[in-house]
């Protein structure tokens, strides 16, 4: 309940929360830390720390490259947890582990959840772990008051959405469109309908991600969703102009 209470408390003050994303170890942990500082300046509410994986098959080209380079630079799971612990002490926002299931599986679910709790994480987003396979992980996470975040997709049947919505803890991550991360999403009536469908099936806050990259997108989501999820666009801003680029991007988006 900790994550949902935190979000509810913030939602009482702000109509739309923001979750951002960094790929651990890319370009470096030092730069990750500076990116988080900029995010804190804008009162970001949640940050996903992506633990790099060699086969990021749900990610688009920019994140694929970031994952690959982070691994080539020698980023290990233990380094990601150490970074999370450091960030959790320093920043007011909540941190989520984001990554692929093999990273969790290889360490062992129990050990991974223990480390996540010890590092001060609030939950985890594992897009290639379906609900059916997550029973034990969900039980372990619940015991440590951590929330595994479920993804809801526009291709889901109503029955499937209802099943996911009922099982959701913390918040749900509504995937705005088909495809991988990092392409443009049309903010239109179809998406609006999908967000409304997500709302109907769950009690927890609704976050929307995939292709959220502009001020117009944020304006569109305000009043429809609870959390705007910004991934690739922020990394693009950092890659183009570093700290200043990210600051300008977030100012344009949220200022």
């Amino acid at each position: 309940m900790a994550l949902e209470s935190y979000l509810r408390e913030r939602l009482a003050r702000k109509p739309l929360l923001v979750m951002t994303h960094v790929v651990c170890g890319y370009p470096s942990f030092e730069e990750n830390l500076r990116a988080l500082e900029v995010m804190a300046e804008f009162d970001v509410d949640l940050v996903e720390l992506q633990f790099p994986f060699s086969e990021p098959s749900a990610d688009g080209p920019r994140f694929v490259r970031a994952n690959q380079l982070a691994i080539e630079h020698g980023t290990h799971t233990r380094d990601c947890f150490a970074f999370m612990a450091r960030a959790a002490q320093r920043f007011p926002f909540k941190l989520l582990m984001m990554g692929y299931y093999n990273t969790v599986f290889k360490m062992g679910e129990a050990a991974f959840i223990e480390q996540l709790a010890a590092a001060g994480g609030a939950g985890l987003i594992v897009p290639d772990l379906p609900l059916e396979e997550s029973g034990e992980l969900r039980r372990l996470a619940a015991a440590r008051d951590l929330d595994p975040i479920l993804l809801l997709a526009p291709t889901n049947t109503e029955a499937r959405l209802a099943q996911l919505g009922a099982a959701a803890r913390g918040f749900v991550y509504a995937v705005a469109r088909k495809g991988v991360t990092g392409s443009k999403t049309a903010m239109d009536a179809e998406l609006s309908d999908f967000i409304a469908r997500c709302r109907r099936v769950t009690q927890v806050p609704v976050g929307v991600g995939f292709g959220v990259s502009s001020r117009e997108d944020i304006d569109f989501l305000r009043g429809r969703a609870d959390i705007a999820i910004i991934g690739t666009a922020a990394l693009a801003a950092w890659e183009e102009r570093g700290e200043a680029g990210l600051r300008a991007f977030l100012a344009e988006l949220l200022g």
Partner: protein
Amino acid sequence: MSLFDFAPGREGYYGTYGGCFLPEILTSTIDELRECFRACKADPAFWEEFRAVMRSYSGRPTPVTYLENLSRHLGGARIYVKREDLNHTGSHKINNVMGQGLICKRLGKTRVIAETGAGQHGFATATMAARFGLRCKIYMGAVDVARQRPNVFWMENLGAEVVAVEDGQRTLKDAINECLRDWVTNMADTHYVLGTACGPHPFPEMVSYFQSIIGLEAREQIQENAGRLPDRVYACVGGGSNAMGIFQGCLDDAGVELVGCEAGGFGPGPGGHASRLAYPDASLGVAQGYKTYFLQNEDGNMLETHSIAAGLDYIGVNPILAYLWEQKRVRFEAATDDEVREALRLVMRTEGLIPALESTHAFARAIAEAPAMGRDEIILINQSGRGDKDIFTVADAIDDRAWKQFIRAKADQYGA
């Protein structure tokens, strides 16, 4: 053995291996595929339709050939070969591809995508797409594009678009990732023709089902030709589709030993081979949609792999074979690049056969083991593909001077 009678709640699992680990966006697509495949498998007319296609289009049944010269040369067991190389497009890949083409038509989809390593699966898929009037895009690691140009040439001329994948190690696994990325975007009109018996359920079962045509034929043929079932069956294992195909013919015959032959590359030690089970360098993991043994590090990130044969150069192994290995039903061995080169030379000279470098891994193990077997014993090898596609790699490996001269002359002719 009823591998495919799943316990409640364990559909798609073979022991602890297999499963279906996909992003939520693909749930309805994979559900639709699973239901369609279930209906086809339950319909005897579907199998007959499949067999008819394979008979008229691919020349099935492929024969079993007795290798009298090689058997005599080795002085041990009598060696027979199942000739999947004689299929249209030159390998067993066409079996799975035509089967999935029929499934694709039932699903009403108009576009297919496929990954390919050696290029045989991409070649077969491009052929099927042309025949069935489907749009076709083939993803192939840039390294493989460079080493298998002849197959790329044919795919493009058959009307497929070939994309060289530049991510990761730029081999088969990266091509699979790229297919998954295409599929999460285009699933509405696109079927993913996964080429090997790996990936999320129902692919391992479905690919094994279509490839079982190899084993069903071979079982009859070896009894006709040799008078009884073989003592050992050898098949190379990359993803594992040809091995599953031929092994299914003798899975319930306890007296038949099944031997899976993996890519030993430069030999044991992380990074120099693609042997998941024969060498102790792999561990259990979940990637590319399924649970099996992967060549990975302590963080679960995949290791570099190496093989002389692009089609075996892969990080994971068919979950059904991992289970059969654990049950001690299938023995796993590796053949190194050097052993494969030697075996190829011997088979070409003694029998006039040119197995693909992939298939030659099975020959290499059989050649190593045959001399210690009795003359009344019988070996069956699956020659999963033909080797003429490997002309560049083989010419390199044996350092053929005349070939190099020819290439130079060609380059001059093209004004390089």
